[in-house]
Protein backbone atom coordinates (compact mmCIF):
# COMPACT_ATOMS: atom_id res chain seq x y z
CA UNK A 1 0.00 0.00 0.00
CA UNK A 2 1.28 3.42 -0.91
CA UNK A 3 1.85 5.80 1.97
CA UNK A 4 0.04 9.10 1.81
CA UNK A 5 2.46 11.97 1.25
CA UNK A 6 2.56 14.27 4.24
CA UNK A 7 2.09 17.97 3.64
CA UNK A 8 4.93 18.74 6.05
CA UNK A 9 7.77 16.36 5.18
CA UNK A 10 10.60 15.45 7.56
CA UNK A 11 12.76 17.73 5.42
CA UNK A 12 10.35 20.64 6.04
CA UNK A 13 10.44 19.92 9.78
CA UNK A 14 14.25 19.97 9.80
CA UNK A 15 14.18 23.25 7.89
CA UNK A 16 11.78 25.08 10.26
CA UNK A 17 13.56 23.64 13.30
CA UNK A 18 16.80 25.08 11.99
CA UNK A 19 15.18 28.48 11.38
CA UNK A 20 13.75 28.46 14.92
CA UNK A 21 17.00 27.23 16.51
CA UNK A 22 15.41 24.04 17.82
CA UNK A 23 17.41 20.83 17.90
CA UNK A 24 15.36 17.73 17.10
CA UNK A 25 16.20 14.05 17.33
CA UNK A 26 15.43 11.86 14.31
CA UNK A 27 12.44 10.22 16.03
CA UNK A 28 11.08 13.64 16.90
CA UNK A 29 11.34 14.78 13.28
CA UNK A 30 9.01 11.93 12.25
CA UNK A 31 6.56 12.64 15.07
CA UNK A 32 6.38 16.37 14.31
CA UNK A 33 6.08 15.68 10.57
CA UNK A 34 2.87 13.74 11.23
CA UNK A 35 1.47 16.19 13.80
CA UNK A 36 2.25 19.33 11.81
CA UNK A 37 0.84 17.73 8.65
CA UNK A 38 -2.43 17.05 10.48
CA UNK A 39 -2.58 20.67 11.62
CA UNK A 40 -1.75 22.18 8.24
CA UNK A 41 -4.13 19.87 6.38
CA UNK A 42 -6.84 21.30 8.64
CA UNK A 43 -5.79 24.95 8.39
CA UNK A 44 -5.31 24.74 4.62
CA UNK A 45 -9.03 25.46 4.34
CA UNK A 46 -8.23 29.16 4.80
CA UNK A 47 -7.11 28.98 1.16
CA UNK A 48 -10.75 28.85 0.07
CA UNK A 49 -11.69 32.15 1.76
CA UNK A 50 -12.13 34.91 -0.80
CA UNK A 51 -9.85 37.71 0.34
CA UNK A 52 -9.02 39.74 -2.75
CA UNK A 53 -9.52 43.42 -1.84
CA UNK A 54 -9.69 42.58 1.87
CA UNK A 55 -7.10 44.50 3.92
CA UNK A 56 -4.96 42.65 6.45
CA UNK A 57 -5.57 43.05 10.18
CA UNK A 58 -2.55 42.70 12.42
CA UNK A 59 -3.81 44.62 15.44
CA UNK A 60 -7.25 45.57 16.73
CA UNK A 61 -6.79 48.78 18.73
CA UNK A 62 -7.35 51.13 15.76
CA UNK A 63 -4.66 53.38 17.19
CA UNK A 64 -1.62 54.26 15.11
CA UNK A 65 1.55 55.64 16.64
CA UNK A 66 1.68 56.33 20.35
CA UNK A 67 4.25 58.93 21.24
CA UNK A 68 5.80 59.90 24.53
CA UNK A 69 8.32 62.51 25.50
CA UNK A 70 11.90 61.44 25.00
CA UNK A 71 12.67 61.56 28.70
CA UNK A 72 14.39 58.96 30.83
CA UNK A 73 12.08 57.39 33.41
CA UNK A 74 14.33 56.34 36.25
CA UNK A 75 11.47 54.39 37.78
CA UNK A 76 11.86 51.89 34.97
CA UNK A 77 15.57 51.32 34.85
CA UNK A 78 17.52 48.39 36.22
CA UNK A 79 20.91 48.87 37.84
CA UNK A 80 23.65 46.96 36.05
CA UNK A 81 23.81 44.53 38.95
CA UNK A 82 20.05 43.87 38.77
CA UNK A 83 20.10 43.45 35.01
CA UNK A 84 22.86 40.85 35.25
CA UNK A 85 21.37 39.05 38.24
CA UNK A 86 19.56 36.33 36.27
CA UNK A 87 22.35 35.59 33.82
CA UNK A 88 24.15 32.24 34.09
CA UNK A 89 27.42 33.67 32.79
CA UNK A 90 28.73 37.21 33.14
CA UNK A 91 32.18 38.75 32.68
CA UNK A 92 33.31 42.14 34.02
CA UNK A 93 29.74 43.38 34.21
CA UNK A 94 28.74 42.06 30.76
CA UNK A 95 26.52 39.24 29.56
CA UNK A 96 28.52 36.46 27.96
CA UNK A 97 27.22 35.32 24.57
CA UNK A 98 28.32 32.47 22.36
CA UNK A 99 30.89 33.30 19.71
CA UNK A 100 29.14 34.07 16.43
CA UNK A 101 32.18 33.78 14.16
CA UNK A 102 34.68 30.98 14.49
CA UNK A 103 38.42 31.62 13.99
CA UNK A 104 38.22 30.29 10.44
CA UNK A 105 35.53 32.86 9.59
CA UNK A 106 37.62 35.65 11.03
CA UNK A 107 40.65 34.65 8.96
CA UNK A 108 38.85 34.45 5.64
Amino acid at each position, binding site marked *: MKKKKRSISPKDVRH*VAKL*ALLKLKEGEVKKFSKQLSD*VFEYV*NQIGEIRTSNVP*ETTQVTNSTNRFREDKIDKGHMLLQEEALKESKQTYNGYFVVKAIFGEDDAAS
Partner: protein
Amino acid sequence: MQLHELTIRESLTLLGQKKISSVELTEALLNRIRTYDKNLHSFITIRDEEVRKEAASADNQRKKKVSKPMLGIPVALKDNFLTKGIRTTSASPVLDDYVPQYDSTYAKKLKDAGAIIIGKTNLDAWGHGSSGEHTVHGVPHNPYARGYVTGGSSSGSGAAVAARFCAVGSGSDTGGSNRQPGSYCNVVGLKPTYGRVSRYGVIAMASSTDSIAHLTRTIWDSAYVLSIVAGHDPLDATTSTQKVNSYHETLMNNYQAKIGIPKQYFEGLNQGVEKSVRKALEILEKKGHSLIEISLPNAKYAYPVYCITVSSEISSNLARYDGIRYGFDRSKFQDEARRRIMIGTHSLSTGYADKYYKQAAKARTLLIRDYQKAFMKVDLIACPVYPFPPFKHQDRDLDPLQMYLSDVLTVTANLTGNPGISVPIEFVNDLPNGLQLIAPHFEESRLFRVGFDVEEELQMYKKKPRLIA
Protein backbone atom coordinates in the same frame (compact mmCIF):
# COMPACT_ATOMS: atom_id res chain seq x y z
CA MET B 1 -18.33 31.27 59.18
CA GLN B 2 -15.85 29.55 56.88
CA LEU B 3 -13.23 32.09 55.89
CA HIS B 4 -12.25 30.27 52.69
CA GLU B 5 -15.81 30.58 51.37
CA LEU B 6 -15.71 34.38 51.45
CA THR B 7 -15.82 36.32 48.21
CA ILE B 8 -13.82 39.53 47.86
CA ARG B 9 -16.97 41.52 48.47
CA GLU B 10 -17.78 39.66 51.70
CA SER B 11 -14.16 39.79 52.91
CA LEU B 12 -13.99 43.55 52.40
CA THR B 13 -17.19 44.04 54.39
CA LEU B 14 -16.01 41.86 57.28
CA LEU B 15 -12.52 43.39 57.29
CA GLY B 16 -14.12 46.84 57.35
CA GLN B 17 -16.34 45.84 60.29
CA LYS B 18 -13.26 44.38 62.06
CA LYS B 19 -15.03 41.02 62.32
CA ILE B 20 -12.08 39.32 60.67
CA SER B 21 -8.44 40.26 60.15
CA SER B 22 -6.33 39.84 57.05
CA VAL B 23 -3.98 37.62 59.08
CA GLU B 24 -6.86 35.26 59.94
CA LEU B 25 -8.10 35.19 56.36
CA THR B 26 -4.63 34.60 54.91
CA GLU B 27 -3.81 31.87 57.45
CA ALA B 28 -7.07 30.09 56.72
CA LEU B 29 -6.38 30.06 52.99
CA LEU B 30 -2.73 28.99 53.37
CA ASN B 31 -3.80 26.12 55.64
CA ARG B 32 -6.38 25.03 53.13
CA ILE B 33 -3.85 25.17 50.30
CA ARG B 34 -1.38 23.15 52.32
CA THR B 35 -4.01 20.53 53.12
CA TYR B 36 -5.48 20.06 49.67
CA ASP B 37 -3.22 21.37 46.94
CA LYS B 38 -0.81 18.44 46.92
CA ASN B 39 -3.66 16.50 45.34
CA LEU B 40 -4.82 19.32 43.08
CA HIS B 41 -1.63 20.96 41.68
CA SER B 42 -3.13 24.40 41.32
CA PHE B 43 -0.05 26.26 42.63
CA ILE B 44 3.54 26.29 41.40
CA THR B 45 4.78 28.61 44.17
CA ILE B 46 3.12 29.06 47.55
CA ARG B 47 4.43 31.98 49.58
CA ASP B 48 4.59 31.66 53.34
CA GLU B 49 6.38 33.80 55.96
CA GLU B 50 6.38 36.99 53.86
CA VAL B 51 2.63 36.64 53.35
CA ARG B 52 1.99 36.65 57.08
CA LYS B 53 4.02 39.84 57.44
CA GLU B 54 2.17 41.47 54.57
CA ALA B 55 -1.19 40.49 56.08
CA ALA B 56 -0.15 41.90 59.47
CA SER B 57 0.92 45.11 57.76
CA ALA B 58 -2.45 45.29 55.97
CA ASP B 59 -4.24 44.91 59.33
CA ASN B 60 -2.07 47.69 60.73
CA GLN B 61 -2.86 49.99 57.85
CA ARG B 62 -6.55 49.31 58.32
CA LYS B 63 -6.27 50.26 61.98
CA LYS B 64 -4.68 53.53 60.87
CA LYS B 65 -7.70 54.13 58.60
CA VAL B 66 -5.73 53.65 55.39
CA SER B 67 -8.20 53.10 52.58
CA LYS B 68 -7.21 50.85 49.66
CA PRO B 69 -9.61 48.88 47.46
CA MET B 70 -8.02 45.45 48.03
CA LEU B 71 -6.42 46.02 51.43
CA GLY B 72 -5.57 42.67 53.01
CA ILE B 73 -7.21 40.52 50.32
CA PRO B 74 -5.20 37.42 49.34
CA VAL B 75 -4.84 36.93 45.58
CA ALA B 76 -3.10 34.37 43.36
CA LEU B 77 -1.34 35.21 40.10
CA LYS B 78 -0.89 32.94 37.10
CA ASP B 79 2.78 32.05 36.85
CA ASN B 80 3.27 33.97 33.60
CA PHE B 81 2.68 37.29 35.44
CA LEU B 82 6.06 38.76 36.42
CA THR B 83 6.37 39.33 40.16
CA LYS B 84 9.42 41.12 41.51
CA GLY B 85 11.43 38.80 43.72
CA ILE B 86 8.96 35.90 43.33
CA ARG B 87 9.92 33.03 41.00
CA THR B 88 8.02 33.17 37.70
CA THR B 89 8.28 30.07 35.49
CA SER B 90 5.45 30.20 32.96
CA ALA B 91 5.38 26.44 33.80
CA SER B 92 8.29 25.92 31.40
CA PRO B 93 11.72 24.45 32.24
CA VAL B 94 13.18 27.36 30.20
CA LEU B 95 12.30 29.74 33.06
CA ASP B 96 12.58 27.24 35.89
CA ASP B 97 14.86 29.43 38.05
CA TYR B 98 13.75 32.88 36.86
CA VAL B 99 13.17 35.51 39.56
CA PRO B 100 11.95 38.73 37.87
CA GLN B 101 13.55 42.09 38.63
CA TYR B 102 10.27 43.95 38.14
CA ASP B 103 6.49 43.57 38.49
CA SER B 104 3.89 43.22 35.76
CA THR B 105 1.51 46.19 35.75
CA TYR B 106 -1.36 43.89 36.77
CA ALA B 107 0.61 42.65 39.82
CA LYS B 108 1.71 46.17 40.69
CA LYS B 109 -1.83 47.55 40.53
CA LEU B 110 -3.11 44.84 42.85
CA LYS B 111 -0.19 45.34 45.26
CA ASP B 112 -0.74 49.10 45.25
CA ALA B 113 -4.41 48.40 46.01
CA GLY B 114 -3.31 46.50 49.13
CA ALA B 115 -3.72 42.91 47.88
CA ILE B 116 -1.49 40.13 49.16
CA ILE B 117 0.02 37.71 46.66
CA ILE B 118 -0.24 34.27 48.27
CA GLY B 119 1.24 32.35 45.37
CA LYS B 120 1.69 31.70 41.69
CA THR B 121 -0.64 29.34 39.87
CA ASN B 122 -0.06 26.51 37.42
CA LEU B 123 -0.75 26.85 33.70
CA ASP B 124 -0.20 25.24 30.34
CA ALA B 125 3.40 26.32 29.76
CA TRP B 126 3.57 29.75 28.09
CA GLY B 127 -0.26 29.73 27.91
CA HIS B 128 -0.21 27.02 25.22
CA GLY B 129 -3.17 24.77 25.92
CA SER B 130 -6.80 24.45 26.81
CA SER B 131 -6.62 21.53 29.24
CA GLY B 132 -3.92 22.40 31.80
CA GLU B 133 -1.94 19.30 30.86
CA HIS B 134 1.14 20.98 29.36
CA THR B 135 2.99 21.67 32.59
CA VAL B 136 6.01 20.26 34.40
CA HIS B 137 4.45 21.05 37.80
CA GLY B 138 1.82 18.30 37.97
CA VAL B 139 -1.39 18.36 35.93
CA PRO B 140 -4.13 20.17 37.86
CA HIS B 141 -7.20 18.13 38.73
CA ASN B 142 -10.68 19.48 38.29
CA PRO B 143 -11.82 20.30 41.85
CA TYR B 144 -15.29 18.99 40.94
CA ALA B 145 -14.10 15.78 39.25
CA ARG B 146 -10.77 14.25 40.09
CA GLY B 147 -8.93 12.91 37.04
CA TYR B 148 -10.64 15.39 34.73
CA VAL B 149 -9.02 18.49 33.24
CA THR B 150 -9.56 21.99 34.60
CA GLY B 151 -9.50 23.70 31.24
CA GLY B 152 -6.64 25.98 30.38
CA SER B 153 -4.36 27.64 30.04
CA SER B 154 -5.22 29.46 33.32
CA SER B 155 -5.70 26.00 34.82
CA GLY B 156 -4.22 26.68 38.25
CA SER B 157 -6.16 29.91 38.78
CA GLY B 158 -9.40 28.16 37.78
CA ALA B 159 -8.74 25.24 40.12
CA ALA B 160 -7.52 27.46 43.00
CA VAL B 161 -10.56 29.77 42.89
CA ALA B 162 -12.96 26.80 42.60
CA ALA B 163 -11.18 25.01 45.45
CA ARG B 164 -11.65 28.07 47.67
CA PHE B 165 -7.89 28.63 47.97
CA CYS B 166 -8.41 32.30 47.08
CA ALA B 167 -11.25 34.47 45.82
CA VAL B 168 -9.40 35.67 42.73
CA GLY B 169 -6.67 34.27 40.50
CA SER B 170 -5.26 36.18 37.56
CA GLY B 171 -5.19 34.85 34.02
CA SER B 172 -4.17 35.71 30.49
CA ASP B 173 -6.63 34.87 27.69
CA THR B 174 -5.07 34.52 24.23
CA GLY B 175 -7.60 32.12 22.70
CA GLY B 176 -9.94 31.31 25.58
CA SER B 177 -7.57 30.73 28.50
CA ASN B 178 -9.67 32.51 31.14
CA ARG B 179 -13.12 31.60 29.83
CA GLN B 180 -12.24 27.91 29.43
CA PRO B 181 -11.11 27.13 32.99
CA GLY B 182 -14.00 29.35 34.06
CA SER B 183 -16.37 26.98 32.29
CA TYR B 184 -14.74 23.73 33.45
CA CYS B 185 -14.18 24.85 37.07
CA ASN B 186 -17.59 26.46 37.74
CA VAL B 187 -16.13 29.96 38.16
CA VAL B 188 -16.39 33.30 36.34
CA GLY B 189 -13.65 33.68 33.70
CA LEU B 190 -13.16 37.13 32.18
CA LYS B 191 -11.51 38.19 28.94
CA PRO B 192 -11.71 41.97 28.69
CA THR B 193 -11.42 44.04 25.51
CA TYR B 194 -7.94 43.87 24.00
CA GLY B 195 -6.04 46.83 25.46
CA ARG B 196 -8.34 47.31 28.46
CA VAL B 197 -5.77 45.81 30.88
CA SER B 198 -2.02 46.27 30.48
CA ARG B 199 0.01 43.36 29.12
CA TYR B 200 3.24 44.81 30.53
CA GLY B 201 5.17 42.13 32.38
CA VAL B 202 2.84 39.30 31.40
CA ILE B 203 5.00 36.84 29.46
CA ALA B 204 3.87 37.32 25.87
CA MET B 205 2.13 34.52 24.03
CA ALA B 206 0.54 36.30 21.04
CA SER B 207 0.92 40.05 21.38
CA SER B 208 -2.08 40.99 19.22
CA THR B 209 -4.57 38.78 21.09
CA ASP B 210 -3.28 38.48 24.70
CA SER B 211 -5.99 39.81 27.06
CA ILE B 212 -5.34 40.08 30.77
CA ALA B 213 -7.83 39.60 33.62
CA HIS B 214 -8.87 37.00 36.19
CA LEU B 215 -11.10 34.21 37.47
CA THR B 216 -13.42 34.69 40.46
CA ARG B 217 -16.41 32.91 41.97
CA THR B 218 -18.86 35.76 41.43
CA ILE B 219 -19.62 38.40 38.83
CA TRP B 220 -19.33 41.20 41.40
CA ASP B 221 -15.79 40.17 42.29
CA SER B 222 -14.80 39.97 38.62
CA ALA B 223 -16.24 43.42 37.92
CA TYR B 224 -14.67 44.94 41.03
CA VAL B 225 -11.17 43.67 40.28
CA LEU B 226 -11.44 44.79 36.64
CA SER B 227 -12.20 48.32 37.81
CA ILE B 228 -8.87 48.22 39.71
CA VAL B 229 -6.56 46.62 37.15
CA ALA B 230 -7.92 48.20 33.94
CA GLY B 231 -6.68 51.39 32.36
CA HIS B 232 -4.05 53.12 30.29
CA ASP B 233 -0.46 52.13 30.99
CA PRO B 234 2.44 54.06 29.46
CA LEU B 235 4.39 50.80 29.54
CA ASP B 236 1.97 49.10 27.12
CA ALA B 237 1.31 51.23 24.05
CA THR B 238 -1.72 49.12 23.12
CA THR B 239 -3.67 50.02 26.27
CA SER B 240 -6.68 52.26 25.78
CA THR B 241 -7.11 55.71 27.26
CA GLN B 242 -10.88 55.15 27.45
CA LYS B 243 -12.37 55.75 30.89
CA VAL B 244 -12.52 52.79 33.28
CA ASN B 245 -16.00 52.21 34.73
CA SER B 246 -16.92 51.12 38.23
CA TYR B 247 -18.21 47.93 36.65
CA HIS B 248 -19.46 46.47 39.95
CA GLU B 249 -21.78 49.41 40.54
CA THR B 250 -24.02 48.84 37.51
CA LEU B 251 -24.98 45.21 38.13
CA MET B 252 -28.46 46.15 39.38
CA ASN B 253 -29.24 48.63 36.59
CA ASN B 254 -32.41 48.11 34.63
CA TYR B 255 -31.28 46.61 31.34
CA GLN B 256 -32.93 44.51 28.67
CA ALA B 257 -30.50 43.26 26.08
CA LYS B 258 -30.96 41.97 22.57
CA ILE B 259 -28.90 38.80 22.64
CA GLY B 260 -27.64 37.24 19.42
CA ILE B 261 -27.53 33.46 19.15
CA PRO B 262 -25.12 32.54 16.35
CA LYS B 263 -26.46 29.38 14.70
CA GLN B 264 -22.91 28.34 13.67
CA TYR B 265 -21.83 28.24 17.34
CA PHE B 266 -24.47 25.62 18.13
CA GLU B 267 -23.49 23.15 15.42
CA GLY B 268 -21.89 19.87 16.47
CA LEU B 269 -22.21 20.47 20.19
CA ASN B 270 -22.28 17.80 22.85
CA GLN B 271 -25.99 17.40 23.69
CA GLY B 272 -25.53 17.91 27.42
CA VAL B 273 -23.61 21.13 26.84
CA GLU B 274 -26.28 22.38 24.45
CA LYS B 275 -29.08 21.56 26.86
CA SER B 276 -27.38 23.36 29.73
CA VAL B 277 -26.68 26.43 27.57
CA ARG B 278 -30.23 26.54 26.16
CA LYS B 279 -31.56 26.43 29.70
CA ALA B 280 -29.40 29.42 30.63
CA LEU B 281 -30.73 31.26 27.58
CA GLU B 282 -34.30 30.59 28.75
CA ILE B 283 -33.40 32.23 32.05
CA LEU B 284 -32.24 35.31 30.17
CA GLU B 285 -35.51 35.43 28.25
CA LYS B 286 -37.42 35.12 31.50
CA LYS B 287 -35.43 38.06 32.86
CA GLY B 288 -36.64 40.24 29.99
CA HIS B 289 -33.82 39.90 27.48
CA SER B 290 -34.68 38.93 23.92
CA LEU B 291 -32.97 36.21 21.92
CA ILE B 292 -32.33 36.74 18.22
CA GLU B 293 -30.84 34.16 15.90
CA ILE B 294 -27.88 35.56 13.99
CA SER B 295 -25.39 34.23 11.47
CA LEU B 296 -21.59 34.53 11.47
CA PRO B 297 -20.74 33.29 7.98
CA ASN B 298 -16.99 32.96 8.53
CA ALA B 299 -17.25 31.16 11.88
CA LYS B 300 -15.81 27.90 10.57
CA TYR B 301 -12.56 29.63 9.61
CA ALA B 302 -11.97 31.12 13.04
CA TYR B 303 -9.79 28.32 14.39
CA PRO B 304 -7.55 27.98 11.30
CA VAL B 305 -7.09 31.77 11.20
CA TYR B 306 -6.32 31.80 14.90
CA CYS B 307 -3.88 28.90 14.62
CA ILE B 308 -1.80 30.62 11.93
CA THR B 309 -1.92 34.10 13.48
CA VAL B 310 -1.17 33.09 17.04
CA SER B 311 1.47 30.46 16.19
CA SER B 312 3.25 33.06 14.05
CA GLU B 313 3.31 35.51 16.95
CA ILE B 314 4.39 32.72 19.33
CA SER B 315 7.35 31.81 17.14
CA SER B 316 8.39 35.45 17.12
CA ASN B 317 7.85 36.03 20.86
CA LEU B 318 9.60 32.84 21.93
CA ALA B 319 12.59 33.63 19.70
CA ARG B 320 13.98 35.80 22.52
CA TYR B 321 14.58 32.84 24.85
CA ASP B 322 18.26 32.14 24.35
CA GLY B 323 19.36 31.61 27.96
CA ILE B 324 21.76 34.55 27.85
CA ARG B 325 20.16 37.19 30.08
CA TYR B 326 17.90 34.88 32.12
CA GLY B 327 16.56 31.34 32.13
CA PHE B 328 17.89 28.34 30.25
CA ASP B 329 18.54 27.78 26.54
CA ARG B 330 16.18 26.56 23.81
CA SER B 331 16.89 22.87 24.41
CA LYS B 332 14.54 23.16 27.41
CA PHE B 333 11.41 23.92 25.34
CA GLN B 334 8.94 21.07 25.56
CA ASP B 335 6.85 19.54 22.80
CA GLU B 336 3.84 21.85 22.83
CA ALA B 337 5.95 25.02 22.62
CA ARG B 338 8.14 23.43 19.95
CA ARG B 339 5.08 22.43 17.91
CA ARG B 340 3.67 25.94 18.04
CA ILE B 341 7.03 27.56 17.28
CA MET B 342 7.37 25.32 14.21
CA ILE B 343 3.79 25.92 13.01
CA GLY B 344 4.45 29.66 13.27
CA THR B 345 7.89 29.52 11.70
CA HIS B 346 6.51 27.57 8.76
CA SER B 347 3.59 30.03 8.37
CA LEU B 348 6.02 32.95 8.21
CA SER B 349 8.78 31.37 6.16
CA THR B 350 9.76 32.31 2.63
CA GLY B 351 7.34 30.82 0.13
CA TYR B 352 4.57 30.28 2.71
CA ALA B 353 3.97 33.70 4.28
CA ASP B 354 1.43 34.77 1.61
CA LYS B 355 -0.44 31.50 1.77
CA TYR B 356 -0.63 31.38 5.54
CA TYR B 357 0.24 34.47 7.60
CA LYS B 358 -1.03 37.10 5.16
CA GLN B 359 -4.12 35.13 4.16
CA ALA B 360 -4.95 34.68 7.86
CA ALA B 361 -4.48 38.43 8.46
CA LYS B 362 -7.01 39.14 5.69
CA ALA B 363 -9.45 36.53 6.94
CA ARG B 364 -9.13 38.12 10.38
CA THR B 365 -10.63 41.27 8.86
CA LEU B 366 -13.63 39.20 7.69
CA LEU B 367 -14.13 37.77 11.19
CA ILE B 368 -14.09 41.31 12.57
CA ARG B 369 -16.70 42.36 9.98
CA ASP B 370 -18.92 39.42 10.97
CA TYR B 371 -18.90 40.61 14.59
CA GLN B 372 -19.39 44.26 13.61
CA LYS B 373 -22.45 43.34 11.54
CA ALA B 374 -23.81 41.21 14.35
CA PHE B 375 -23.40 44.02 16.88
CA MET B 376 -25.39 46.36 14.66
CA LYS B 377 -28.37 44.08 15.37
CA VAL B 378 -27.69 42.83 18.90
CA ASP B 379 -26.15 44.06 22.18
CA LEU B 380 -24.46 40.79 23.09
CA ILE B 381 -23.67 37.37 21.66
CA ALA B 382 -24.33 34.22 23.73
CA CYS B 383 -22.96 30.73 23.12
CA PRO B 384 -21.19 27.83 24.86
CA VAL B 385 -17.52 28.06 25.88
CA TYR B 386 -16.38 24.54 24.96
CA PRO B 387 -18.24 22.25 22.51
CA PHE B 388 -17.99 19.38 25.02
CA PRO B 389 -17.84 18.89 28.80
CA PRO B 390 -14.58 18.40 30.78
CA PHE B 391 -12.61 15.37 29.59
CA LYS B 392 -10.27 13.00 31.40
CA HIS B 393 -6.55 13.63 31.69
CA GLN B 394 -4.74 12.35 28.57
CA ASP B 395 -7.95 11.82 26.57
CA ARG B 396 -7.02 14.40 23.94
CA ASP B 397 -3.36 14.85 24.69
CA LEU B 398 -2.11 12.38 22.09
CA ASP B 399 -3.66 14.17 19.14
CA PRO B 400 -2.68 17.86 19.07
CA LEU B 401 -5.28 18.77 16.43
CA GLN B 402 -8.13 17.33 18.53
CA MET B 403 -6.85 19.33 21.49
CA TYR B 404 -6.62 22.53 19.43
CA LEU B 405 -10.22 22.17 18.26
CA SER B 406 -11.49 22.61 21.81
CA ASP B 407 -10.86 26.34 21.21
CA VAL B 408 -13.29 26.81 18.30
CA LEU B 409 -15.86 28.84 20.27
CA THR B 410 -13.49 31.14 22.14
CA VAL B 411 -10.78 32.21 19.68
CA THR B 412 -12.84 34.65 17.60
CA ALA B 413 -13.17 37.18 20.42
CA ASN B 414 -9.37 37.20 20.68
CA LEU B 415 -8.88 37.80 16.97
CA THR B 416 -11.49 40.59 16.99
CA GLY B 417 -10.48 42.08 20.36
CA ASN B 418 -14.00 41.81 21.82
CA PRO B 419 -14.59 41.24 25.54
CA GLY B 420 -16.08 37.93 26.69
CA ILE B 421 -16.98 36.15 29.89
CA SER B 422 -17.80 32.63 31.02
CA VAL B 423 -20.59 32.39 33.58
CA PRO B 424 -21.21 29.14 35.52
CA ILE B 425 -24.41 27.31 34.52
CA GLU B 426 -25.94 23.90 35.19
CA PHE B 427 -23.57 20.92 35.31
CA VAL B 428 -23.50 18.36 32.51
CA ASN B 429 -23.32 14.81 33.95
CA ASP B 430 -21.90 16.21 37.20
CA LEU B 431 -19.28 18.24 35.32
CA PRO B 432 -19.17 22.06 35.31
CA ASN B 433 -20.21 24.09 32.27
CA GLY B 434 -20.30 27.75 31.33
CA LEU B 435 -22.29 30.22 29.25
CA GLN B 436 -20.15 32.51 27.12
CA LEU B 437 -21.21 36.12 26.56
CA ILE B 438 -19.41 38.38 24.09
CA ALA B 439 -19.89 42.17 23.86
CA PRO B 440 -18.78 45.05 21.62
CA HIS B 441 -15.40 46.62 22.45
CA PHE B 442 -15.27 48.27 25.90
CA GLU B 443 -18.81 47.13 26.81
CA GLU B 444 -17.67 44.87 29.66
CA SER B 445 -20.52 46.32 31.74
CA ARG B 446 -23.02 44.44 29.55
CA LEU B 447 -21.22 41.14 30.18
CA PHE B 448 -21.37 41.67 33.93
CA ARG B 449 -24.94 42.96 33.94
CA VAL B 450 -26.39 40.07 31.90
CA GLY B 451 -24.07 37.49 33.48
CA PHE B 452 -25.40 38.67 36.84
CA ASP B 453 -28.94 37.67 35.83
CA VAL B 454 -27.76 34.10 35.20
CA GLU B 455 -25.75 34.05 38.43
CA GLU B 456 -28.66 35.34 40.48
CA GLU B 457 -31.00 32.67 39.15
CA LEU B 458 -28.70 29.62 39.26
CA GLN B 459 -26.38 30.60 42.14
CA MET B 460 -23.80 28.10 40.97
CA TYR B 461 -21.23 29.67 43.32
CA LYS B 462 -23.01 27.84 46.13
CA LYS B 463 -22.02 24.48 44.67
CA LYS B 464 -18.86 23.46 46.50
CA PRO B 465 -16.25 21.00 45.29
CA ARG B 466 -15.31 17.95 47.38
CA LEU B 467 -11.56 17.99 47.86
CA ILE B 468 -9.32 15.14 48.96
CA ALA B 469 -6.76 15.82 51.68
